[in-house]
């Protein structure tokens, strides 16, 4: 089969690889119909995630058809169309039973921090990713979510990560009705966070970015106010719009490759002496009102970051963060899609064959061609 693989920092190669096989009795094999490139895939490609090995298949967002099942798989049959959460989880451990499937204890031998994730380095378990024609899916009977009739592949694809993560972020803001929510970053996760903030009852949603076409997309997709943080001091702009206090909640949907601080980018993103740039998180801390909430769902990694924790402490902030436990959210998000509340597939501005992945990564990373998100079709079917 063909698969998109990591070939060294800033290098992607589409390679021929052996088809996946059943390695555990609760595994299944999925024939991938569509896969997505995520902003966090760029952190891998940019050499920022420890233990990223040359030759590993990338991709943690994918949907497809079940083609093979292990002998101890219940509840799913071959031929079913499924969406696979990016978390690999057992469904039976301490954390899975309590709903935090992103903290499963039984799928990642490499670290205590998080569960196994498809195609996201050996730090996250060493599983092959979904930007390929076929993928091994452990615990498929537990993890896979059947795609409802009438929901298209690209809508379902958004639910495997971006929509779920954006929704969890908005949920973590603890909106009671009428709050002002600021979202830093108008990438796919940020866009879904904005939409989700409305669903959860926010009174006002303000989106922040520095790229004009992304701000315009946010206005059209999520009906939000927008700010370009290069126009003026962002913290002051937010205070001017919130009676001098700051926002009730600020979502950092940027993560560790944030712009805005030359020192953090030099030390972190390029120098790798700290774990990327935490500038977006610092901005969130300063834009939130005293007693407000900061939600960090942009990806960060160990070992350390330069964060203004003193300001967070003195401002009584609540900081919420974490990898999304996707499976919990899938039924509700499918409902929102089916009811027409969210046009999820519209974020896929670029829809390409698998062999175009190397160029697609560059387009996505450099924010060219008004690219918001890329979908790849491993079997060449274009929609």
């Amino acid at each position: 089969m063909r698969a998109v693989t990591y070939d060294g920092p800033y290098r992607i190669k589409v390679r021929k690889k052996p088809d996946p096989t059943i390695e555990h009795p609760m595994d299944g094999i999925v024939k991938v119909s569509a896969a997505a490139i995520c902003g966090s895939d760029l952190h891998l490609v940019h050499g920022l995630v420890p233990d990223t090995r040359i030759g590993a298949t990338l991709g943690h967002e994918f949907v497809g058809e079940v083609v093979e099942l292990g002998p101890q798989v219940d509840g799913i049959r071959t031929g079913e169309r499924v969406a696979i959460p990016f978390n690999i989880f057992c469904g039976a451990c301490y954390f899975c039973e309590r709903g935090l499937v992103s903290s499963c204890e039984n799928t990642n031998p490499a670290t205590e921090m998080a569960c196994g994730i498809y195609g996201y380095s050996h730090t996250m378990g060493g599983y092959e990713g979904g930007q390929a024609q076929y993928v091994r899916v452990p615990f498929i009977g537990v993890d896979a979510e059947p795609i409802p009739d009438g929901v298209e592949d690209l809508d379902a694809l958004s639910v495997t990560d971006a929509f779920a993560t954006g929704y969890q972020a908005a949920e973590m803001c603890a909106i009671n009705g009428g709050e002002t929510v600021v979202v830093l970053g108008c990438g796919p996760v940020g866009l879904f966070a904005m939409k989700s903030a409305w669903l959860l009852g926010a009174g006002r949603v303000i989106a922040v970015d520095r790229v004009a076409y992304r701000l315009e997309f946010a206005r059209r997709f999520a009906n939000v106010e927008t700010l370009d943080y290069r126009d003026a001091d962002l913290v002051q702009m937010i205070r001017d719009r919130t009676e001098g206090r700051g926002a009730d909640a600020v979502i950092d949907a940027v993560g560790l490759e944030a712009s805005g601080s030359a020192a953090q980018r030099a030390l972190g993103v390029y120098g790798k002496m700290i774990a990327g740039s935490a500038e977006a998180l610092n901005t969130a801390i300063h834009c939130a009102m005293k007693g407000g909430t900061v939600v960090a769902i942009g990806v960060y990694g160990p070992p350390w970051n330069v964060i203004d924790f003193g300001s967070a402490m003195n401002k009584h902030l609540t900081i919420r963060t974490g990898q999304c436990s996707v499976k919990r959210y899938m039924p509700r998000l499918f409902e929102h899609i089916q009811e027409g509340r969210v046009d999820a597939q519209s974020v896929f501005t670029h829809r390409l064959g698998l062999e175009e992945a190397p160029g697609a990564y560059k387009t996505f990373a450099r924010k060219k061609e008004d690219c918001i998100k890329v979908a790849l079709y491993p079997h060449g079917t274009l929609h």
Partner: protein
Amino acid sequence: MNPGQDEQLIGVDLDPKRRPGTPRFRKPERWPNARWPIPQQQGEPSAALHGKVTPVFGTAVPLAGVSGAVRRLAYRISDHRASHWLLLLAGDRGQLWGRRLPMILAVAVPLAAFATIRASSTCRR
């Protein structure tokens, strides 16, 4: 339309009962189709072990060579220590240069030999 004005949308999930992740920890309940105990996958994980072998593991790109040795060393250090992560990054760079070095040497060594031969024949004249 002013930002946010979409009556079909606003507050649909205001009720906490409609929020899938609220409360953060729900009452313990096994997920449908889960099994306990979980059968153990056979073989070796390609991610170096950090404690126990999990019942299910990935097998992509096994450890190999000098970079594999560096990574294996890294995993003997607990992941709450910075040295664990810095060694893993060193392993990544080691794998990269391990692939690049033969290609560089394949060009550099003949060039150096050619330059040396030229220089010594020029000296003899």
